[in-house]
């Protein structure tokens, strides 16, 4: 059917309003509907034989002296040899059919009756209902009406609403047959198109400034709906029902997310090709496949989580369609499915607090960071979508492990800070190709070191923001000096210098905090200043000073801890003259020497003043 005609029809329905509603209601109320027939008796062979030879027309075959009499109990009027008599029943019925061509008392069954499908119209007159295509148009009108009610300008000439209807009409014309011969797949298609149109109107309504064109919308609808329709199971009732159920739950929100992503990124898809459409379609198909793998979306997190992953992937697709369909990207369908399935599987197994929304938001950050560097994966034998899943696993495992070991941490971090740690490390580290392509990703190593240190901070000396600052510096240093600070030997998991240094500093700081409150005569011994921002600054300074020469740092690790002890003890004893600023200055002045193998000097007031001058 001509798309212009469909579009005209939809607009007309909207105008017709009441007349259209009455016509539609009438057509639905009077349409043919199914009329079931009662069940057959589920008989067994004994009852078939017994019934048959007790029936008026067939009892003569077992009367005494007849062919089958010996197999029939004349006294009780019951079968003796059921198997022989069953063969006799088949034989007699066959002969009967041949003799009965005139149809003595019988009439041939109607085709539809024989098939068990009987449809009955409301009226005996010939009031024909509307054709299915007209009904679809009515449905589209119904959807449009909802939005026109609250925003009458939505269908203005040249407006997005009109473009959307045009795109819808073209798809309708492509995907549904003109003959009105609709089976389950066509009815499913009709429903999908309706849901997509509804999502489209909502997006148009919510994004009044959106500038788009009909061709893009047409391709987007086609890309979203067509692969799902094509994948409709052709065999198996249960498969079809499960597929429809999944699609019903997911396609509305998915179509909404796709439209919104386009509306939010208007500059990203100008041009003729609209490559994003292909990626969007593949991702939508991948979404359904991932959902099917997750055993039918058993709980709410699965649905919400998957949709968030899908939205994050759409964001990647709209900004960088080439990572889905560019040279070396591989099969777009497989890539999309693997990306969503890998990430969803890793998140499903993640430890708290990463098994909920924090996890999916973190996954979105991972997808963005890794895909921005997808060009680095070409020819490496490693797929970016696989790496994204692996990194999600490492981050959630390591940081989740820290939360498991140090239960108090959850009071230090809010969700945004947790996501920030992952995002900061990813953004800074993933730009160094070797760090995301090595035998064990450096992102994981940095996160692992930070996580180990976080687990060791059982006295909560640092805040969530302090840890974010540390993560920034650690990631920067790791990016500048790959495979040095965080892993001296890539084959030895126990060699994690940064983690050891941070844990050592935290332990030292913790020791001071554990000292008993001094009695009154010794009040000159004050509390430690080695916590919060001062402690963070110490850790940051040590990381920056050691990242370039880890071997030297490894050899003088203990001396660094001793220096921290001496400076802290000195500042504690002289609270009226020295505070945290002085603490840090003195420490920085002496750190280089200690790292060169010198022993920390004995600190006196005059020595300290000399260092501060």
């Amino acid at each position, binding site marked *: 059917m001509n798309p212009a005609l469909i579009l005209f029809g939809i607009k007309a329905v909207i105008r017709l309003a009441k007349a259209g509603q009455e016509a539609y209601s009438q057509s639905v109320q009077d349409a043919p509907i199914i009329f*079931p027939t009662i069940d057959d008796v589920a008989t067994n062979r004994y*009852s078939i034989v*017994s019934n048959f030879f007790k029936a008026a027309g067939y009892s003569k075959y077992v009367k005494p002296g007849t062919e089958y009499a010996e197999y029939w109990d004349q006294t009780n009027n019951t079968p003796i040899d059921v198997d022989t008599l069953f063969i006799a029943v088949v034989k007699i019925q066959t002969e009967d059919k041949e003799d009965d061509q005139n149809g003595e008392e019988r009439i041939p069954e109607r085709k539809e009756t024989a098939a068990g499908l009987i449809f009955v119209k409301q009226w005996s007159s010939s009031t024909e209902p509307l054709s299915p295509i*007209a009904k679809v148009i009515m449905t589209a009108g119904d959807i449009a009406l909802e939005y026109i009610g609250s925003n009458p300008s939505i269908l203005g000439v040249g407006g997005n609403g009109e473009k959307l209807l045009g795109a819808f009409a073209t798809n309708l014309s492509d995907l549904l047959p003109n003959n009105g011969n609709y089976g389950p797949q066509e009815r499913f298609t009709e429903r999908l198109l309706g849901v997509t149109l509804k999502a489209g109107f909502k997006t148009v309504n919510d994004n009044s400034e959106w500038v788009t064109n009909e061709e893009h919308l047409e391709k987007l609808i086609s890309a979203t709906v067509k692969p799902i329709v094509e994948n409709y199971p052709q065999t198996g009732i249960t498969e079809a029902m499960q597929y429809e159920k999944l699609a019903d739950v997911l396609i509305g929100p998915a179509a909404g997310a796709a439209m919104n992503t386009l509306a939010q990124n208007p500059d990203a898809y100008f041009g003729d090709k609209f490559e994003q459409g292909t990626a969007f379609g593949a991702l939508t198909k991948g979404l359904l496949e991932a959902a099917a793998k997750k055993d039918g979306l058993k709980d709410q997190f699965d649905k919400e989580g998957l949709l968030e992953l899908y939205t994050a992937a759409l964001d990647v697709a709209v900004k960088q369609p080439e990572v889905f369909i560019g040279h070396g990207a591989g099969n777009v369908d497989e890539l999309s499915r693997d990306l969503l399935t890998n990430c969803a599987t890793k998140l499903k197994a993640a430890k708290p607090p990463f098994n909920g929304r924090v996890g999916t938001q973190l996954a979105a950050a991972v997808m963005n960071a890794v895909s921005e560097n997808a060009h680095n994966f070409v020819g490496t034998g490693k797929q970016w979508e696989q790496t994204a899943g692996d990194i999600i696993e490492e981050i959630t495992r390591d940081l989740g492990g820290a939360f498991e070991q140090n239960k108090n941490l959850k009071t230090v971090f809010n969700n945004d800070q947790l996501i920030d740690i992952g995002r900061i490390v990813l953004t800074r580290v993933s730009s160094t190709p070797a760090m995301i392509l090595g035998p064990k990703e450096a992102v994981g190593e940095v996160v692992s070191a930070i996580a180990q240190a976080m687990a060791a901070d059982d006295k909560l000396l640092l805040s969530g923001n302090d840890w974010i600052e540390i993560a920034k510096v650690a990631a920067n240093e790791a990016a500048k000096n790959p495979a040095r600070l965080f892993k001296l030997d890539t084959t030895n998991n126990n060699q994690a210098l940064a983690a050891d240094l941070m844990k050592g500093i935290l332990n030292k700081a913790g020791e001071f905090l554990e000292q008993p409150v001094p009695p009154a005569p010794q009040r000159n011994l004050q509390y430690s200043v080695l916590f919060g921002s001062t402690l963070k600054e110490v850790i940051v300074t040590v990381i920056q000073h050691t990242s370039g020469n880890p071997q030297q740092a490894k050899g003088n690790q203990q001396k660094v801890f001793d220096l921290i002890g001496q400076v802290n003890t000195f500042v504690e004893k002289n609270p009226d003259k020295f505070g945290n600023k002085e603490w840090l200055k003195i420490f920085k002045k002496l750190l280089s020497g200690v790292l060169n193998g010198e022993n920390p000097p004995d600190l006196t007031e005059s020595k300290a003043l000399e260092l501060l001058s």
Partner: protein
Amino acid sequence: MRLLKTKNLLILAFLCLNLTSCTFMNNSSIVKNIKAAHQLSSADEQLTDLYEKKLTMQRKSAFEKLNIMTSFDSLATDSAKAAENKDREYKTRLGFYRNALTSAWQAKNWQSINVFKGNAEKLCNEDAGFDKAPRDCWMIRVIPNLAGLDEENEDVTKMVHASAQVDIEEANKLFGKFVFNMNAIIASLPGIDKSSANEALGEHVKLNAWKALCGQMTTLVSTLFPKSSEKNQAVCAIQDYYKELKSMKLRSDPPIGCSTRVLPDPQNAGCN
């Protein structure tokens, strides 16, 4: 024909576009009615889909059968709920009740049928439903009896497969239930015939009566009734039903597989 109807709709739309009086009215009842009609249409489509699946489910697993039955049941609940909404058009509500009863019948949810049938019949009588939606109201009237036949048929099937001897009292009681439902169905046929309901309705109600007679009732009497005077009465009742159905209008011949030959032998039963 369908194309013609679509064309008519579009022509009507075109005419309307040129009339200022036909411009869109912001009337929420229009939207409501369209939505209700669309919901009814979807419910009927779902019913058809499920019934098609049921017809092919004989070789399916128990899980799949259960899945289909559960779907019928939830469709029945949804449609009954939609029918109870008094804001909706009268005929749409009747359509929902018809859908609810059909679905509950297919779900074998006898309890729901009992609940729905009272309200549905009441609605039919409230505003001349038998004239305004003759098919739906006649279906609302006969479906509880057709479902009753299926309910009894389940007992017959169980007895056929059970090895224990059936006692006369139990068989008589079961036959009595069949008689009750058959009488109601046969009594409805002249009314259906005279109404403006589509001719196919009467034919198919009658087809169901034939099926009950030649299948369910005959199996009960031939296989399960012990020899007794009660059995003879039942055999004669089946013969009488056969004659009565055959004498009625509405495509009066019995379908293939349902002839006097397959009925229990009346010769020894002493029927008139």
